[in-house]
């Protein structure tokens, strides 16, 4: 455990609330929360408990980050088509082996 991780963990301990949302409750709220954030709505008071959960739970935080990214793409440029996404993997895989190792 490094110093920063330790400091974060200490903060997590002291910010623990007697009652917190669990993962299932949080995930049920995530779609509306992500849409609201993307629309620029002020949600801090309405979703305070959800934000507390996200600060304690790396799993739900990951899901939220990816969901937000997908929604953002959908709104700004549209989700890419399957063929386009698969083509991106082809490009990644085509990187020559020695170069990939050097990276």
């Amino acid at each position: 455990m490094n110093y920063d991780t330790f400091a974060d963990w200490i903060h997590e301990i002291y910010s623990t609330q007697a009652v917190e949302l669990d993962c299932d409750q949080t995930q049920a709220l995530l779609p509306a929360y992500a849409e609201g954030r993307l629309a620029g709505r002020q949600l801090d008071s309405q979703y305070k408990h959800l934000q507390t959960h996200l600060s304690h739970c790396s799993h739900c935080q990951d899901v939220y980050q990816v969901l937000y990214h997908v929604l953002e793409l959908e709104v700004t440029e549209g989700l890419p088509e399957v063929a386009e996404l698969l083509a991106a993997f082809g490009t990644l895989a085509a990187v020559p082996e020695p170069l990939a190792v050097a990276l």
Partner: protein
Amino acid sequence: MASRTNDDWLRALKRPGVAHDQALQELRDYLLRAVLVYLRDHRSDLSNYAPADLHQLAEDLAQEALVSIQDNLDTFRSESKFTTWAYRCVINLAVSELRLQRYRSFSLERLPNQETAALMAVIENTSSADPERAAEQRDFLRTLRRIIQTELTERQRQAIVAVHFQGQPMSAVAHELNISVNVLYKLLHDARQKLKARLEAAHLSESDVLAIFEIDW
């Protein structure tokens, strides 16, 4: 692709027929694209996989999520767009499954008394130049270690060491403990509550600890 309202989705997915099959196909396409975006933009560690394997992986995740969504249509409360709710389902599945695959060699059995080693590492990394402050830091870590060892259950200790000290993904730790991520969260929450109560009972407030370790938030 025509855009459907939430009611359109629910009507089509709940009633067998041609409209149902079309809606399923359309939803499957949305799910597949969301998974592929996740793989492309968030999982660069998978870039050495063959494109065909990644495609298959994404297809499997989309299919599994599709089945789960159909089984749970009645839990959709229309508080968001239906597709956003569906994305959340498939993303949760993908994050869980892929973290699990990546850390499948991880085993809790290899973590006996790791809390001692982890806390000692903090001492080595911090140890203030001020001898008095360094002594306070050691005292606090000793207190914390004693609370962990005497007040927490074995499973709470294992969960803390794996998630907080080792940075293992929660899905991998939950799998090892044979519980859901949700139950793991509750286990960690109970542990945090105990630690907070015992530290406060020992007259150690957060501001005291921040001062001891010279942490500036």
